[in-house]
């Protein structure tokens, strides 16, 4: 894949997903840390926004009912992670 803008958008999504994963694991063992829950919810907001922007331009990030598809079926057009 050689589209710089698409790669840059994916990178921002991956960065925010990493924030969410890290906070998720931390909260599993510190479930009463309200600051961390606020941070986690901020990450969820940011991720929703980033994914919506990405999917409107480049098609679904997830299949199995998580995202809509244009016609023809867009899922099979997705760049695969090992080809990026």
């Amino acid at each position, binding site marked *: 894949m050689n589209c710089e803008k698409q790669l840059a958008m994916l990178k921002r999504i991956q960065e925010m997903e990493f924030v969410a*994963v*890290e906070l*998720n*694991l931390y909260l*599993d*063992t510190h*479930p009463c840390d309200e600051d961390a829950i606020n941070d986690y919810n901020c990450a969820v907001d940011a991720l929703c926004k980033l994914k919506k922007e990405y999917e409107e331009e480049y098609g679904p990030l997830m299949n199995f009912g998580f995202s809509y598809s244009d016609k023809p079926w867009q899922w099979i057009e997705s760049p695969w*992670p*090992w080809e*990026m």
Partner: protein
Amino acid sequence: MRVSCPDVKFAKMVITQYGGPDGELSASLRYLNQRYSMPFNKAKALLTDIGTEELAHMEMIAALVYKLIQGADCEDFKAAGWEGQYVQHDHGLFWTDANGVPWTAKYIAALGDPITDLTEDMAAEQKARTTYEHLIECTDDPCVKDTLRFLWEREVVHFQRFGEMLNEVNEYMGKCHIWNGHKFEKK
């Protein structure tokens, strides 16, 4: 996921984090399998979440191996001493360790006792950390080093989280519960 240039010799080493004893497949299956017999929700959640993260790491290692052997032909595999891979799998991935030993369920323990299993998980994270340290030493490619350092750091975080969970299970038992073989009971 980037590599500066293909390196079949290093692919042969890093494959152990795909299908070796302390690799990402072993880690993922170990945690996703042990979660059923955990005593409370927190522990079930932690094993579910770390097990899922490890699956993503397995995909990262797969992509790394795939890129390290990109464009390599029979002669490249021979030069790297990995002709067995070429003969049996070509550019297909296969779960083995760095010595070609195929993945086996024997790499995974599940005793059904949360203290035993969480202790095993902590040891597994340390073994993965050490393996990543050996691998980082074995490559000069800065892109590959970056990827391996990221994965190395995740093992440190997982060890920390498992340690916190083990302390909680210990506390829970110390307070008012005993483990009677398959469930906690009030003392």
